[in-house]
């Protein structure tokens, strides 16, 4: 069976979606368990794949038994092997962690919610694992469509925000599709490796250049890099918490992965980093993204909105690291895809727990939270420290690689931007700690109960806390095992020609 892991990762969640949908009509309680089983299987097989990759470098799977470039092939190497595990693990943990709040928010539509959930995960996993440029587009659309729907069911202005997301997302995806069209026009192929083998002969062609530019534009829109970030904050703020703690960690990071895949595999590094001016200007774009994201985050008054601006800044980290074009920078970017996904999951899960207990997540509601939800806030502290970049959390080490990449490339604007955003994060999070710690909670909430010391204790239920704790511990574990991850996996993911 292990031969079929690449298929199972995607197909099991897909098929389970039908069963979940059916179960939603018959017996709602089954939905969660089917979804959990499916995602557990794909997590298991993704780990299996990573082990296979560690053994024999690359795993290839031909769908329909047709060899590429005629058929569609999945190709797992070091780069997407590790990202795959991260994605699968995060989607599984989040599923378990949000069970209660899904039951609370979508009593009527649990079946539909979980169907969309697994379909979204299917799409994201597919994007990571596929080796075919067009197949990536289809999977991208699955992930996007389900994402729109999940966000659209949120609070307040969610439908409008989601509709704007639809517009921006569609433009992004269409640009990507157009870029693929130009690549096809130039090479006559859709398989990534095949394209890569043909391109070097026609690098100077302006069709290839156009394809490159258009693909990147599409990806930038999808990953909400600074000038194209407008859709993100509203969409993330109003979306239902169990959905956003899935979407926020995965969508943008996976888009960064796709960008790395295109720069390194499809357009080989010699082309991608061919012109110094281009890559430098992209790094500057990232710098602007970091600075603007951090500054805008300062001016926010509610937790989720603040976090979503931090996400925008974090995108800047990764894009900058990628475009530095040296080994340290790329290592940092790939490492940060994993760490940032984990820590975003952590903080958004806490936001979910808070919203599960409290009426809202504006800063006034956070008063006295350390008393009320000590465990959630404890996890929040870990996530915050990781985002600030304090050792030994994972965030520190990815930031370490990014900064040393910046120094190695002599790009001090990027270095300063990173330090600046860490300082801003200190301010952001300690402001929240102050509020949650010192302000007496003036708004006692329903179902607040006293513990034996007469304090109000009202943390989220155990089912939500345990996965959160796992994530929080995982952040530190990621930090401790940074060197293992880098030396065993990531350094092989970066082609040798990059020094």
């Amino acid at each position, binding site marked *: 069976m292990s031969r079929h892991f690449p298929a199972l990762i995607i197909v099991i969640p897909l098929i389970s979606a039908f069963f979940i949908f059916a179960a939603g009509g018959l017996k709602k309680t089954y939905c969660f368990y089917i979804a959990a089983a499916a995602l557990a299987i794909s997590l298991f097989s993704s780990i299996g794949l990573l082990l296979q990759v560690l053994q024999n470098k690359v795993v290839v799977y031909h769908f329909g038994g047709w060899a590429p470039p005629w058929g569609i092939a999945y190709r797992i190497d070091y780069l997407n092997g590790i990202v795959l595990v991260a994605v699968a693990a995060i989607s599984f943990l989040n599923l378990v962690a949000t069970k209660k709040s899904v039951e609370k928010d979508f009593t009527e539509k649990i079946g539909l919610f979980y169907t969309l959930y697994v379909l979204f995960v299917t799409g994201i996993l597919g994007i990571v694992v596929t080796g075919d440029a*067009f197949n990536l587009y*289809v999977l991208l*659309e699955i992930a996007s469509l389900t994402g729109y729907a999940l966000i659209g069911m949120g609070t307040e202005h969610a439908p*409008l925000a989601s*509709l704007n997301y639809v*517009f921006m997302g*569609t433009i992004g995806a269409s640009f990507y*599709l157009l870029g693929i*069209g130009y690549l*096809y026009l130039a090479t006559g192929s859709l398989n990534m490796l095949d394209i890569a083998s043909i391109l070097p002969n026609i690098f100077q062609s302006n069709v290839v250049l156009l394809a490159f530019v258009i693909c990147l534009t599409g990806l930038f829109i999808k990953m909400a890099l600074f000038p194209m970030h407008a859709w993100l904050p509203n969409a993330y703020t109003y979306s239902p918490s169990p959905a956003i703690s899935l979407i926020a960690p995965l969508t943008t990071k996976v888009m960064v992965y796709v960008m790395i895949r295109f720069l390194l595999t499809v357009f080989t590094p010699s082309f991608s980093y061919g012109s110094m001016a281009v890559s430098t200007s992209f790094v500057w774009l990232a710098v602007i993204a970091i600075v603007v994201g951090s500054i805008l985050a300062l001016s926010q008054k509610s937790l989720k909105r603040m976090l979503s601006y931090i996400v925008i800044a974090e995108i800047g980290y990764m894009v900058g690291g990628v475009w530095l074009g040296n080994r340290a920078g790329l290592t940092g970017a790939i490492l940060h895809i994993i760490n940032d996904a984990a820590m975003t999951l952590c903080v958004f899960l806490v936001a979910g727990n808070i919203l599960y207990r409290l009426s809202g997540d504006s800063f006034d509601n956070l008063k006295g939270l350390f008393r009320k939800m000590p465990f959630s806030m404890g996890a929040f502290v870990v996530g915050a420290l990781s985002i600030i970049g304090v050792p030994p959390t994972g965030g520190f080490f990815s930031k370490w690689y990014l900064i040393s990449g910046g120094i190695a490339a002599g790009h001090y604007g990027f270095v300063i931007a990173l330090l600046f955003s860490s300082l801003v994060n200190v301010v952001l999070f300690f402001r929240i700690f102050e509020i949650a710690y010192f302000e007496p909670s003036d708004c006692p909430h329903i179902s607040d109960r006293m513990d034996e010391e007469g304090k109000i204790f009202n943390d989220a239920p155990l089912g939500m806390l345990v996965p959160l704790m796992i994530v929080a511990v995982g952040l530190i574990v990621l930090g401790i095992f940074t060197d293992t991850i880098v030396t065993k996996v990531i350094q092989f993911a970066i082609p040798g020609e990059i020094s």
Partner: protein
Amino acid sequence: MVDLLTIIISKYNYWGYIVLMMVGLYAMIVKKNLVKKIIGMSIFQTAIIFFYVSIGMKKNATIPIISHGHDGGERAVHAVDFINPLPHVLMLTAIVVSVATLGVALALAIKVYRQYNSLEEDVIDSLIKEK
């Protein structure tokens, strides 16, 4: 001047889809009515479909259907006689995707209308401002 003209003539498919695409973008950016934006979105996607299909075109070639079953395959099949099937396949997918997007977008538009009793962006914005 003439050769520029010939370029435009010989590559009119590109210009066609670019014009169509710009129309779509214009609608999505300028129009204030959400449904008009949605229409613009589908025009935008259609432009790309048009582009792909135009790639598949081959001069003096016929549709990619071989005129006899596999029992009587005596006449050899030459690639030049049939137009390129791949773009059509891809675009079947793309069409479906755009239909799906359209459906979701309309559903969201209905939700928006339910919430604000309007599809005009500026009206909705003013409503949001009031709160």
